[in-house]
């Protein structure tokens, strides 16, 4: 064999040997076991932690809520949709407590009006639907039903309640001046059972003409202060202008 061919053979043998050797060293151990990939990668995926425990785990302890929920409109709703991933709570119930969203922004994620939602899905306008009130005051999230009657006056009288909320009368409950509010609200025919409105100047005088009332309440003398008129003919009680 000519010398140059011998040398070429040596070079080829060394190169191929180096390639085979490198391949032996560099190919991961489990590569090609079940396909053109590292079989051990599946094992490392399987060791990933679980964050969402799954509804069944929740109901193992909270079976009372599960029972309530199963026949309700939220039966298909997994606990961790609202209460955040709770595998930590399932492992160690005392140190990790899952949150319960009570702020108004949460429920409209599903129930806020959006024309792209399938028709028939219950939706409200979060801006005008009982503003400021937390959803849970009227609706039980574990067994939500549209409320029969409004729990608060603002269920219907939103405009008045919103106006009053920024006035000096913000702290006064509706029933302070209007009688029969409870009956009116609970009635299936609220228009036939209207709550009473104040009829006499004396009602306003209970605070504004009383010596016992707190000092920051503006005081008048009922006898001399425009005796011809009733108070609400000049002042709007839901938003009184006087300082």
């Amino acid at each position: 064999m000519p010398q140059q061919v011998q040398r070429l053979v040596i070079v080829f043998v060394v190169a191929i040997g180096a390639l085979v050797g490198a391949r032996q060293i560099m190919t991961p151990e489990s590569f090609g076991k079940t396909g053109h990939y590292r079989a051990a990668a599946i094992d490392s995926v399987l060791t990933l932690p679980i964050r969402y425990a799954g509804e069944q785990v929740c109901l193992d302890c909270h079976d009372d809520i599960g029972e309530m929920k199963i026949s309700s409109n939220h039966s298909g709703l997994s606990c961790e949709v609202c209460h955040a991933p709770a595998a930590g709570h399932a492992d160690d119930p005392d140190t990790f407590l899952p949150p319960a969203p009570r702020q108004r922004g949460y429920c409209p994620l599903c129930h806020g009006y959006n024309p792209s939602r399938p028709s028939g899905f219950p939706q409200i306008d979060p801006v005008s639907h009982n503003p400021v009130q937390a959803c849970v005051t009227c609706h039980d999230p574990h067994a939500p039903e549209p409320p029969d009657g409004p729990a608060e006056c603002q269920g219907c009288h939103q405009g008045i309640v919103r106006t009053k909320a920024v006035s000096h009368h913000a702290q006064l409950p509706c029933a302070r001046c209007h009688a029969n509010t409870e009956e009116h609200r609970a009635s299936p025919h609220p228009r036939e059972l209207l709550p009473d409105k104040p009829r006499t100047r004396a009602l306003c005088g209970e605070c504004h003409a009383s010596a016992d009332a707190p000092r920051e309440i503006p005081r008048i003398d009922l006898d001399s202060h425009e005796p011809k008129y009733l108070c609400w003919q000049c002042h709007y009680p839901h938003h009184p202008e006087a300082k």
Partner: protein
Amino acid sequence: MAQETRPEKRSATEKGKSQDRRTFLKQCLRGSPLLLGILPLEAEGAEEEEAYQPEEHLYGMGIDVDKCIGCGRCVDACKNENDVPREPFFFRTWVERYVVREEGEVEVDSPNGGIDGFPLQVDDREVQRTFFVPKLCNHCSNAPCVQVCPVGATFTTEDGVVLVDPDYCIGCRYCIQACPYGARFLHPETRTAEKCTFCYHRVRRGLQPACVEVCPTKARVFGDTRQRSSPLARFFRFNKIQMLKPHLNTEPKVFYAALDASVG
């Protein structure tokens, strides 16, 4: 088993020279189904029931577009479960809003993947139809991403889930280019390709993927396509099924019901 087939072989040879090689082989073959049929049966009975046989499963997901309310809880759950970066451009799953105008124009948007909900549209042109479409990796049987991976870091498991091996990925982004569904991204920290795993770590432990677990309207259904009775089997029975971009022959394993023609 060998004992069962042996007499056959003997008889073949005993008949001797009148039989040629072809008939002999034919007879052997006839015996072999018996052998194949009984062997696995016995093996199954002998092994523990708990041992997971990946080739017996083929996972898939069904999505009912008519049920999706676009609340984005699936996107949030996916990010929680899989530590997906919270920045608004890394998603393993996301929800798209489709708005088809009267004149036929199609608008698609997905603000932050739908995780914060969808703001009402200000455009007051007439809307013909509008709906939400959740999207994720389609776990294609003919996955383009798997084909292009130069190092074998992206692969299809025997139970049909397309996974990424982060220890082996070199971050070349070929797979991101190849995916016709835009389902992949490069993780900003590890610099390796990332995608939906069907929550493989949950599925193998008998749980549902996180997005399916939290879907409030059960618009997402997960299951084993080889199982005869399962929510997914029911989904197949009661819906007309479509897939995304069927003309690409990727053979997706995410199946859509009530999919609109405008969805690409």
